[in-house]
């Protein structure tokens, strides 16, 4: 350890390495409440720096924990004895190619910052996790992140054209994978393999991302339904009407009630909630909005709040309840904990075919009474991604009960034809779930294939060890 750090300081200079414990502690935590340990944080400023780090780690058998903004929720970014490599200083947008429809960026660029630049050109990078204000390109790629626009735009894997990666080998080998074009047959699709690899295969030092034009206009509706059946009716009708909403968010009535406890809203938040966003041509905005309102009303929505454009939607607080999912659960748990006690929030990230969402919700609610837990339940119904969340007060709640619950939820997902993680990744918390998923498909062999792949990329097992596989 001392050897590795001495070498890093000598090769990179003291400004790029810190062993200060107060500082290192800031890089050993995640919002999930998981806490790790590290010896040092290293701050590369260039691809060459990253190669030096990889080479040195290989030489000294030092585990490397890559990190963007550490907003992961499944333990993906938490270190355990080794060095954290923070990409925050590699945060340049290198190229914006409007004609080719792509950008070239360093991994530390925050998603919202990228969008601020693209907006000026009338473009956007459409993957928008709720954490996009701080989530980095490198973190989003490695977590295979998705977001609110997922219903139409999918997740990172649809938007990464190429990556540069540095391998943890004796050379710190640099590979330039992928193309600047959407069409690209380069043998096995290694770019796709890196997406969602959670820093276990290579250190991403650069990315070529696709971009999309900003919609001309948008309309939104927030609707509260008397029950899940009527909400599902509206959802099905939306699908059949060939409207392709880019945003289709859902929260069940109980969660609406919890999450809006302390919110001051201009409407009554009551019932099962559906939030719809549609991209439209300017001329069509009013008509689509009217059609949408009618459709929701026809299916029994009791309260409908509409908005034309994102500004109005914000002003009318259409997103507020949905955005409060995580903070609402944290707040509830903190209140329960009282001062001085630590808490953790466990956020599930299952996905089921959208048509199975009502059944999933029903079964998750049944679990609530089985385990005596307060569960927040919302998600991206457009792509069937649900985020049931529970809080744990340390020293009060039995973590084992929560773990059992966590597993039961994953079981429900797999039984309904879905899987255990949609966008947050496997990290530490979902490893068992991944095994269960593959096992129940009779494909456990895939797990050993993954382990083999990991060994080929990272022979000494130094990259984010303990995660994913």
């Amino acid at each position, binding site marked *: 350890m001392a050897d590795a750090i001495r070498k890093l300081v000598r090769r990179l200079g003291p400004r790029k390495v810190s062993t200060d414990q107060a500082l290192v*502690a800031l890089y050993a935590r995640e919002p999930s409440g998981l806490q790790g340990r590290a010896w040092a944080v290293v701050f590369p400023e260039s691809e060459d720096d990253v190669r030096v780090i990889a080479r040195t780690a290989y030489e000294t058998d030092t585990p490397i924990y890559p990190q963007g903004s550490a907003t992961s929720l499944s333990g993906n970014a938490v270190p355990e004895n080794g060095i954290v490599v923070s990409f925050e200083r590699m945060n340049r947008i290198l190229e914006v190619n409007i004609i080719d429809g792509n950008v070239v960026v360093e991994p530390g660029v925050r998603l*919202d910052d990228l969008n601020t630049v693209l907006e000026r050109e009338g473009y956007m990078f459409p993957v928008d996790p709720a954490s996009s204000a701080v989530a980095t390109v490198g973190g989003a790629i490695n977590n295979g992140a998705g977001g609110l626009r997922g219903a139409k735009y999918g997740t990172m894997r649809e938007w990464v054209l190429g990556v540069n990666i540095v391998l943890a080998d004796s050379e710190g080998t640099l590979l330039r994978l992928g193309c600047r074009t959407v069409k690209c047959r380069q043998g096995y699709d290694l770019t796709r393999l890196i997406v969602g690899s959670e820093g276990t295969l290579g250190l991403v030092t650069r990315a070529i991302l696709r971009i999309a034009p900003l919609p001309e206009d948008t309309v939104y509706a927030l609707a509260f339904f008397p029950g899940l059946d009527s909400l599902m009716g509206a959802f099905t009708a939306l699908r059949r009407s060939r409207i392709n909403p880019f945003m289709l968010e859902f929260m069940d009535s109980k969660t609406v009630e919890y999450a809006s406890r302390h919110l001051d809203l201009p409407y009554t938040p009551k019932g099962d909630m559906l939030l719809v966003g549609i991209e439209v041509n300017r001329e069509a905005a009013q008509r689509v909005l009217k059609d949408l309102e009618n459709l929701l009303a026809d299916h029994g929505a009791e309260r409908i709040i509409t908005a034309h454009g994102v500004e109005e939607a914000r002003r009318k607080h259409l997103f507020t309840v949905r955005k409060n999912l995580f*903070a609402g659960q944290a707040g509830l748990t903190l209140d329960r904990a009282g001062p001085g006690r630590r808490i953790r929030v466990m956020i599930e990230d299952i996905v089921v075919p959208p048509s199975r969402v009502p059944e999933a919700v029903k079964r998750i609610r049944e679990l609530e009474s089985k385990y005596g837990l307060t569960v927040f339940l919302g998600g991206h119904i457009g792509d069937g991604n649900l985020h049931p969340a529970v809080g744990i007060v340390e020293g009060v709640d039995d973590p084992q009960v929560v773990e059992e619950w966590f597993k039961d939820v994953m079981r429900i997902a797999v039984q309904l034809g879905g899987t255990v993680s949609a966008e947050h990744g496997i990290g530490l918390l979902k490893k068992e779930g991944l095994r269960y998923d593959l096992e129940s498909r009779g494909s456990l062999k895939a797990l050993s294939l993954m382990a083999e792949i990991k060994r080929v990329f990272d022979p000494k097992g130094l990259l984010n060890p303990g995660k994913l596989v």
Partner: protein
Amino acid sequence: MSGPNTIDRLRTWISETAGRCIYCGFCESVCPTRPLGPHRGYGPRGRVAMARLVAEGVTPLSNTVVESVYTCLLCAACETKCPVGLPIADIIRAARRLYTLEAGFSAREEKGRVPAIARR
């Protein structure tokens, strides 16, 4: 005005208030010092976490901590983004106060003979 009780109370307040931070980092997105500073300690999430570590006696009031809390602008931009509504600027100011008290620092000692930073 500031006996050991003050310090204890200050520590408790920081620990309890900063303890509500869920480490989401949303606050970092608007902090002017974060992207221009060298590391996470130059942002609200880091400052709040350090304040807590110091208040709870986990880390000493090292130069890194002092640097972190004294480079804050107290501009409160971060507070507009915090989903749990933390009084971030107040927490940082409280950490400064803890430093001035712990270091036995005050105008009374203007002669410059100030004791070394209390290392816990």
